[in-house]
């Protein structure tokens, strides 16, 4: 806030003026004007970004960067009235068009005036080349299986990307064809909706890479590629051009005048610093060096009244994963009553106070919307609240009851449980310490509870590495899924029997069936109410089973400098903050 006094005066005058003026001269950007006003620089910060390769990036920070300087087929944009967002073509023109009645053949038209930063035109060849590279069987990129099959399953793609070096599946068998320079044909394995196709091609890992640059970045044996890393090359084509990147330090972007929707952009420049220490970020914000900062639990008390504070709904529920396959204590964790005892022994209100968060007894996080059309949050639906336990799921008497029943059923008179937590997360550490104290107090001396801090890599690998032969890798561990915020039914996949990377050894055919009905059946894809009913059913079941014990959510809290005007004022799931579309008002 270098110019704080001056700014305050300017603002005061501005306030006074607008108060005096008639409503007719409201300082509203005229939607009819041809050219947007282009000026100003946005200063922001991101966490560690080690690669800009859209096919390998897994950091949230990387997504922000990739979004700013590359394009894909579909994207979310602020709408013209400034009160919401639209899901439209970025490189694509209009929605995908179904070419057969089964909903398996689609055509997507793309713009003919898109360019790379060096002037090369972008055609369907670039799109197909990028998709071919992400699924390359030798490269084996991190995102290959997601591109091949997520919201839609591209015909033959799974076989193609998993063939290894056997050379048995040629690229021609994959359902991606060029009709002409500006028309792409996509063939899917099964029925898909317009929205499925759009969503699949809006993911950042379907963004484009520049063929000559990419080719130059291959290693000699073509098994690795350095595109978008410290040593490799890079080519921008998005709303902004990446003009300077110092790995681990900063990104500088300049507006791309050749971008197809350049009119949407009113910033001249964006600077993203890489800052990982939260104190440093706050100081940078207070000194006026960056325009926004995300506040941690300790900082929130000092800024709760600040008008620059913008809260956002939490996108994931911090929960305790229960290894129900663990054989210790006569398989106590496999006992539903035992798990429910833990569920009801948790004083979530006290925990919420501790982490400055919200007590959570649910599976679907608050930021997840029930339908893209209405934008209503799933958690706000009355049906989604009906089955939540009262008093935030805290009932010591009930917990003791469940615990005694469980002990009787198991035929043991003492249970010893250990929870692991990651030492690098101060909130889960604090909550673990709290539970370490309170759970035994509620459940009595027959319950012995230990907590064990481990390195973060070890925590996640212990949580994932259980097998049928070696089930006892962990007992309780912290987890929290960040699933799609727009597709509520999809997110339930993490508890299905077939999901590869799940935390709990949970196998239930009935549940898998529900998921398939919601996500893959034709009715589930088209009838949103039916789909939501299935979601309620799945969530109720999961809460009742307590195979993961939801504890709390932490809402995002962000200070945003008043010189920045965001397109939608607040964070919107799927759309995000929309930093790219911000305006500088000083």
């Amino acid at each position: 806030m270098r110019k704080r006094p001056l700014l305050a005066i300017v603002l005061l005058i501005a306030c006074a003026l607008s108060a005096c003026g008639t409503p007719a001269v409201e300082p509203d950007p005229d939607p009819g004007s041809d050219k947007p006003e282009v000026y100003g620089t946005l200063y922001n910060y991101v966490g560690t970004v080690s690669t800009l390769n859209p096919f390998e990036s897994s950091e949230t920070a990387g997504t922000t960067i990739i979004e700013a300087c590359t394009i894909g087929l579909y994207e979310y944009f602020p709408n013209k009235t400034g009160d919401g967002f639209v899901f439209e073509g970025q490189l694509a023109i209009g929605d995908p068009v179904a070419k057969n009645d089964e909903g398996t053949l689609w055509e997507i038209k793309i713009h003919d005036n898109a360019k790379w930063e060096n002037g090369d035109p972008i055609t369907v060849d670039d799109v197909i080349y990028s998709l071919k590279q992400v699924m390359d069987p030798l490269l084996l990129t991190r995102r290959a299986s997601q591109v091949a099959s997520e919201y839609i399953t591209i015909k033959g793609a799974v076989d193609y990307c998993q063939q290894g070096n056997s050379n048995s599946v040629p690229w021609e068998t994959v359902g991606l064809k060029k009709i002409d320079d500006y028309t792409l044909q996509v063939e899917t394995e099964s029925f898909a909706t317009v929205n499925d196709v759009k969503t699949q091609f809006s993911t950042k890992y379907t963004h484009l890479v520049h063929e000559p640059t990419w080719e130059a970045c291959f290693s000699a044996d073509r098994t690795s590629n350095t595109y978008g890393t410290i040593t490799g090359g890079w080519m921008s084509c998005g709303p902004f051009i990446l003009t300077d990147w110092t790995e681990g330090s900063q990104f500088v972007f300049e507006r791309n005048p050749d971008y197809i929707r350049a009119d949407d952009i009113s910033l001249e420049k964006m600077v993203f610093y890489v800052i990982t220490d939260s104190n440093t970020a706050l100081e940078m914000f207070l000194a006026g060096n960056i325009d926004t900062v995300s506040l941690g639990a300790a900082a929130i008390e000092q800024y709760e009244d600040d008008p620059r504070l913008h809260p956002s709904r939490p996108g994931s529920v911090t929960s305790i994963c229960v290894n129900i396959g663990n054989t210790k204590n006569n398989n106590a964790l496999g006992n539903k009553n035992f798990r429910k005892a833990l569920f009801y022994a948790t004083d979530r209100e006290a925990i919420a106070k501790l982490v400055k968060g919200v007590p959570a007894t649910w599976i679907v996080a608050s930021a997840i919307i029930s339908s893209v059309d209405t934008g209503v949050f799933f958690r706000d639906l009355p049906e989604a609240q009906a089955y939540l336990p009262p008093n935030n799921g805290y009932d010591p008497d009930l917990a003791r009851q469940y615990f005694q029943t469980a002990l009787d059923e198991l035929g043991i008179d003492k249970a010893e449980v250990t929870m692991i937590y990651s030492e690098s997360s101060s909130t889960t550490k604090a909550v673990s310490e709290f539970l370490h104290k309170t759970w035994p107090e509620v459940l009595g001396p027959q319950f012995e509870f230990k907590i064990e801090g481990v390195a973060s890599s070890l925590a996640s690998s212990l949580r994932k590495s259980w097998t049928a032969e070696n089930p006892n890798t962990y007992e309780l561990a912290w987890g929290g899924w960040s699933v799609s915020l727009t597709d509520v039914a999809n997110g339930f996949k993490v508890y299905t029997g077939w999901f590869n990377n799940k935390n709990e050894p949970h196998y239930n055919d009935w549940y898998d069936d529900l998921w398939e009905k919601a996500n893959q059946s034709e009715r589930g894809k088209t009838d949103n109410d039916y789909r939501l009913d299935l979601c309620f059913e799945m969530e109720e079941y999961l809460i009742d089973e307590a195979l993961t014990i939801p504890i709390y959510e932490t809402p995002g809290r962000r200070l945003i400098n008043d010189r920045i005007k965001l397109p939608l004022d607040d964070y919107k799931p799927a759309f995000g903050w929309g930093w790219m579309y911000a305006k500088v008002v000083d």
Partner: protein
Amino acid sequence: MLITLFIIVTIGFMVIRLMPGNTMYADDPDMSAAQIEVLRAKYHLDKPVPVQYVIFLRGLLLEGDWGTSISLYVGVPVWDVLKAKIPVSMYNNIVSLMISLPLGILSGVIAAIRKNTIVDYATSFAVVIFISVPSFIFATLLQYFAAFKWRLFPIIYDASATGAGKLHSLLLPILALSFSPIARVTRYLRAELAETINSDFMLLARTKGLTETQATLRHGIRNSLVPLANVVIPMFTHIMSGSLVIERIFSIPGMGGLMVSSINAPDYPLTLAILIFYSLVSLVTVLVVDLAYGVIDPRIRIGGRNIE
């Protein structure tokens, strides 16, 4: 030395590959089981550890191939990662060393000459504070006051600056880096020098008419430099490594965070390369210092022989 290095490579490889919870891509929700299997095969992780070791060693010796980063900088040869990161940390450490060695020696000598005076006590006090309070506290305080409150320096490292601007934006982290070495050198030199001052040859030096200061400067320091090497060797070794804490607080893209994040990722080829590279640097430093020992103190040259 080659045998030493070979042993280090072997131990390092075994230790890192036999880490508990050794599952690749554990935290990655996006890959199918089939794909992970193919990937493991690609990086030879499906083979027994000794076979992996042979493959690694062959690559390293025959092609100078340190391996490819598998999860942090996917696809990038780890040597290139080190090459990009090391100069940043090296710059800081060399400047820091250039500050702390003379300053440490100077204040150590002053404290020894003026021992048991107010100067000595003040120095000792400062030394104690600098050694005892962890650098992350100092770094945070320096950043808060010098950069944020008083606006004397940028809060974080400015990557686009060059020359004086670069030094300016790095001065705080360098200062935070230097406190501890200054204090260490001071304290060690003072102790050693004070011991030397009491020895017979110093008495002789004074007897022949030198003042205490002259005697200390001409005869004392040389004698105290040998044990000082104990403190200085690690400093040289650390020239190429960064400080995790300070680099994180000041957003410096150096080596500091890389070591821990490569272990946490986990990115085995990267961890291994870091381990081997720094071991090599350290070995070379020790060798150089051993040779330097002989130059500084002839007694050590002779002492190398068996007394029997």
